[in-house]
């Protein structure tokens, strides 16, 4: 269909607002991909409130809200739908909708939309939307024929910390692009400004990823700090306790889906006690059947628990299959918080950091403020004496081991939200967990805390410089050297060595 005809057709449609929507939809569906794209671009340049419903449906992959047929769009068309929809939403009465639309347009607006944006910019009353529209416009005005408009646009872009602004300004500064000297200097200043802001965002981002990695290490290592630090048991099956926790989450998810679909958003919260109970139960069972016989023979526990870990892995493989299982993030754990234009903090990671700290606090309270904690500490320090004082050492051992395993189960719930859930899940965490515990000082919660965050941040600082692998190796070498200086770890109690 020739373009002129199409325009005419569109014009006619505009004259018939009532019929427009249905006709648009039919026309859109009938069109080929290329025509659909052109159509969307035209709609974006000349928005019509009547088309709003169609565009929102298109964004959902439907033709109309009540039409359940799936519409197959490709990425390019989806992008254009987003843009056209934003254009239409600028006509909304709701200032928040307009703001979101303006922000979308900052990314996606096309030169053909300048005239429309200009009109909206002039008539916009809300200050925030006005500013956002100004930026969206500025992006397009960099190529305006009027130097004064360009200068204003360049200055405005300098105020943002948007990575796209940097690219646009850089393009402007390419030799032969900008002829006006005043605009060039302004662009240079703006560019420096933008770069500074971006650097700040990047550094914050690195720090955050370090904290996030640290919190994951912490959750993985915390249970180990208890079983290894307090009981002296080298639990190589610790990783499998994490894995059990993650699988418990999976099972809970399925059960909730089947029996209480309404609560599906909160299944991770339901999974927490279940995962704790499953891991702790398995842990206590192992303690009573195997580990109990091996106290005081750490190397033997190491081998026996390795055997246990093999059995657990294979058992899970037979039960659930070798394939990874699907653990979905609920909506409140998807997406992220936009802090700066180049810094998004994913909700799942924020929640995990908070959760890790919460678990540490809980553990600390449990060990220092409860009868069980007192018993555990007593048994750790002098088993015979504790037994004489009437502390049931066997039971305490069992409970302490269960506690360590249960905490690993909690860690498993967290891990299921950011990575794979498969039979080998635990294997990838076991070495790191041991390093955290050794580095932090055995038996020291605070030590584990610092060691985990320290390792996480060090890892993330090194990764951009020398790559993930060399970074990891370098950190390992540093740990070995560090242990030269402080063989007992960061936070060891000094004291008479008992031999």
């Amino acid at each position, binding site marked *: 269909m020739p373009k002129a005809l199409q325009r005419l057709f569109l014009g006619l449609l505009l004259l018939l607002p009532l019929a427009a929507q249905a006709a648009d939809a039919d026309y859109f569906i009938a069109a080929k991909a290329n025509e659909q794209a052109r159509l969307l671009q035209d709609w974006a340049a000349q928005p019509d409130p009547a088309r709003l419903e169609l565009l929102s449906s298109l964004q959902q992959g439907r033709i109309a809200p009540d039409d359940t047929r799936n519409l197959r769009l490709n990425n*390019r068309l989806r992008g254009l739908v987003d843009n056209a929809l934003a254009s239409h939403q600028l006509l909304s009465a709701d200032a928040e909708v307009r703001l979101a639309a303006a922000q979308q347009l900052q990314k996606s607006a096309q030169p053909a939309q300048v005239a429309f944006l200009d009109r909206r910019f002039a008539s916009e009353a809300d200050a925030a939307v006005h500013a956002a529209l100004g930026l969206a416009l500025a992006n397009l005005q960099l190529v305006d024929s009027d130097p004064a408009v360009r200068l204003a646009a360049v200055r405005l872009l300098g105020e943002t910390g948007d*990575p796209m602004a940097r690219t646009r300004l850089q393009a402007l500064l390419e030799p032969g692009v900008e002829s006006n000297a005043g605009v060039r200097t302004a662009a240079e200043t703006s560019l420096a400004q933008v770069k500074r802001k971006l650097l700040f965002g990047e550094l914050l*981002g690195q720090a955050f990823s370090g904290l996030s*990695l640290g919190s994951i290490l912490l959750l993985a290592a915390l249970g180990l700090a208890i079983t290894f630090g307090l009981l002296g048991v080298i639990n190589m099956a610790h990783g499998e306790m994490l894995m059990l926790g993650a699988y418990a989450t999976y099972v809970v998810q399925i059960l909730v889906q089947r029996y209480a679909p309404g609560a599906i958003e909160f299944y991770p919260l339901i999974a927490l006690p279940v995962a704790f109970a499953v891991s702790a139960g398995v842990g206590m069972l192992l303690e009573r059947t195997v580990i109990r016989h091996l106290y005081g023979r750490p190397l033997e526990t190491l081998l026996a628990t390795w055997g246990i870990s093999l059995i657990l892995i294979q058992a899970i493989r037979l039960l*659930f299959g070798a394939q*990874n299982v699907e653990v979905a993030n609920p909506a409140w754990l*998807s997406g992220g918080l936009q802090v700066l234009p180049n810094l998004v903090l994913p*909700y799942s990671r924020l929640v995990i950091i908070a959760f890790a700290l919460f678990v540490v606090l809980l553990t600390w309270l449990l060990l220092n403020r409860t009868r069980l904690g007192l018993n555990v500490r007593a048994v750790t320090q002098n088993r015979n004496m504790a037994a004489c004082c009437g502390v049931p050492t066997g039971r305490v051992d069992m409970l302490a081991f269960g506690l360590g395993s249960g905490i690993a189960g909690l860690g498993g719930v967290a891990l299921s939200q950011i990575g794979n859930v498969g039979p080998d899940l635990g294997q990838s965490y076991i070495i790191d967990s041991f390093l955290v515990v050794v580095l932090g000082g055995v038996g020291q919660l605070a030590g584990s805390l610092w060691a985990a965050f320290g390792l996480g941040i060090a890892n993330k600082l090194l990764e951009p410089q020398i790559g993930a692998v060399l970074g990891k190796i370098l950190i390992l070498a540093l740990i070995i050297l560090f242990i030269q200086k402080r063989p007992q770890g960061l936070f060891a109690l000094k004291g008479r060595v008992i031999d």
Partner: protein
Amino acid sequence: MKRRSLIKAFTLSASIAAMGLSWSIQAAETIKVGILHSLSGTMAISETSLKDMALMTIEQINAKGGVNGKLLEPVVVDPASNWPLFAEKGRQLLTQDKVAVVFGCWTSVSRKSVLPVFEELNGLLFYPVQYEGEEMSPNVFYTGAAPNQQAIPAVEYLMSEDGGAAKRYFLLGTDYVYPRTTNKILRAFLHSKGVADKDIEEVYTPFGHSDYQTIVANIKKFSAGGKTAVISTVNGDSNVPFYKELANQGLKATDVPVVAFSVGEEELRGIDTKPLVGHLAAWNYFESVDNPVNSQFVADWKAYAKAKNLPGADKAVTNDPMEATYVGIHMWAQAAEKAKSTDVDKVREALAGQTFKAPSGYTLTMDKTNHHLHKPVMIGEIQDDGQFNVVWETEQPLRAQPWSPFIPGNDKRPDYAVKGN
């Protein structure tokens, strides 16, 4: 060392079928075929389904009377994802069990491990997985894609208006030979299309890498410089954390599409697909392809999975390497019929130019000289049900170029199989 053959209803007794010389003990003689896929260890996730697919195909062929009037007897061994063990088990299949042909291997390293054994003993291996090329052994038939049958068309699509007209390319891969070679070829190809080095970023992560925060931040930074596409050769388990991070940091498929070469239906089975929707994959076959051959193929497989009570049978899916296994076994059977023998040299000769109507909806041809299949290329968009929506495909099957013209020195390579390359 007693092998364990999975003797199904159709095999009656153990018998030794040596090439040319065989004697029957009790009943009809069979032709032994070896299946060399890891059933334990890290690769079991992917390879177990290929073993089952091979068994199903063999069962179907036997139901139609076998090959040259003899039934096929599968000999299954487990190399346990242990590369030296592949060579050992390969040797066992060829010398102890005296199989006529072997279907197996997934990773390149496992293929490289058995290759000397097959060349030494003049065995025959069918390799069903897409790989980096740079190999053409007379003892191997490659039924998966070479780079020009997967990677290059995918990039051509990304460059097109429909694919988003990407200007910048972020090549992300797991650090092993397939991604490195593929990316090397892609870089040369991108150069030939006028993409400058500053618009190409190449990053590798170790196996099992699970923390993609830094890399996604880098992709974001890179994509601010212009319309960007990510070409992912990230392997296996690392995909989930990668896509999750991508989605959580707000990179959508409409902004930065990711096209993956190692993500198929089987991989999507264990994944929350929400964050992946809209991202792309390039293969030579998708389960969602709509044609009668494929419908039959998928239905057969689901029925087989249910009948054998395979784990996860209720969610059984087919994928590209499974189709390649299926095609490979049928091609071998046809060639053996044509040669009226299972002798390796005769079958090899008969395989050249062999055709087969494949589930992908095309009639595939085994090339006359280069031991690779002519294959169609399809680009699929991931949907939330774990299937792919085919958004683009080639008009006809492409001939494989195992020696990529984009790698210097390959122009001197012969276009036929020679030992020891």
